[in-house]
C-alpha cells in the first residue's frame, strides 16, 4: 500500500526515528533501543516509513539497515513552499483590498 508522506511525519515516534536515521543507517534493534516502546511497535513505524518511501532498507550480512531517503524528505520542503505561495496569494489580495479602501477615502 502506498501512503501519504505526511501520514509518516504525523507521528512523534516516527519523526524521532527519521531524526535518528538521518545521521546514520541503523538496524531495527538499534533504533528500538532509543524508545520506551516494544520492538514490534518500532517495526510497525518502520514499515509505515518504508511504505511512504521515506526510508530504505539495505541488507548487510545478517542485519537489515534502515536509512533515510533524502529526496523524499525534500517533498516536505516542496510542500512547505506551496504553503508559502498561499500566503503570497493571500497578501496580494490584501494589497488590493487596502489600495481599494485608500482610493475610496480620497
Amino acid at each position, binding site marked *: 500500500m502506498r501512503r501519504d508522506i505526511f501520514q509518516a*511525519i*504525523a507521528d512523534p515516534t516516527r519523526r524521532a526515528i527519521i531524526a535518528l536515521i538521518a545521521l546514520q543507517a541503523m538496524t531495527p534493534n538499534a533504533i528500538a533501543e532509543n524508545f520506551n516502546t516494544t520492538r514490534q511497535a518500532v517495526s510497525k513505524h518502520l514499515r509505515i516509513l518504508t511504505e511512504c518511501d521515506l526510508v530504505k532498507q539495505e541488507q548487510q550480512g545478517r542485519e537489515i539497515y534502515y536509512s533515510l531517503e533524502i529526496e523524499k524528505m525534500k517533498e516536505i520542503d516542496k*510542500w512547505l513552499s506551496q*504553503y508559502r505561495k498561499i500566503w503570497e*496569494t493571500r497578501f496580494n489580495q490584501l494589497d488590493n483590498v*487596502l*489600495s481599494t479602501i485608500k482610493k475610496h477615502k480620497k
Partner: protein
Amino acid sequence: MNTALLFDFTVDKAAKTVNITREFDAELPLVWDAFTKSELLDQWLAPKPMVCKTKYQDFKVGGKRFYAMVSPEGVERWAIQEYTSISPKTNFKMYNAFADKDENPELPGSEWDHSFSEQNGTTKVYISIYNESLERLERILDGFTIGMKMSLSNLENLLATLSHK
C-alpha cells in the same frame, strides 16, 4: 504598487513554528482593521477561487470568529478563532482550530501571534503560527484544495496561475 515590500516566510521545524513578515503600503490603523474585522478579512483571507465567509465575529479577549473557507463547488471548511490577547493596533493573539459546521472544534489547533508596526506610512506585520504537528499544517493546505480534487502538484500549478492574474 510598491513592489519593494518585504515578504519573509520561514519554517522552524524544531520549534514547529511558521514565521511570516510582510509589509503593506498602508497606514497601521487600516492594516489592523484588515486583520481584525471580518468584513475585510473575508475579502482577502481565502486564496481565490476559494472564498471566505464569517458566520459571526466578536473581537474581544475570549471572543471568537467562526468562519468557513468555501470552494467553488460550495464545499465548506469551517474553523474557529478564539482571541486570547488583544493590544489594540499593536498585537493580537488567537487560537485557531478547524471545526464542523456546528462549531465543534477539532483539536489541537494552532496558536497565532500578530504584531503590527508602522514606519513612514508602511505597516509591517509579523505573524508567528505555532502548530502541534506538520500534519496539521498539511490539513490547512487540504482546506484550500478540498472539493477541488487536486493533488498537491496540481495545486502548485493552480497557485502559479493565480499569482499571474
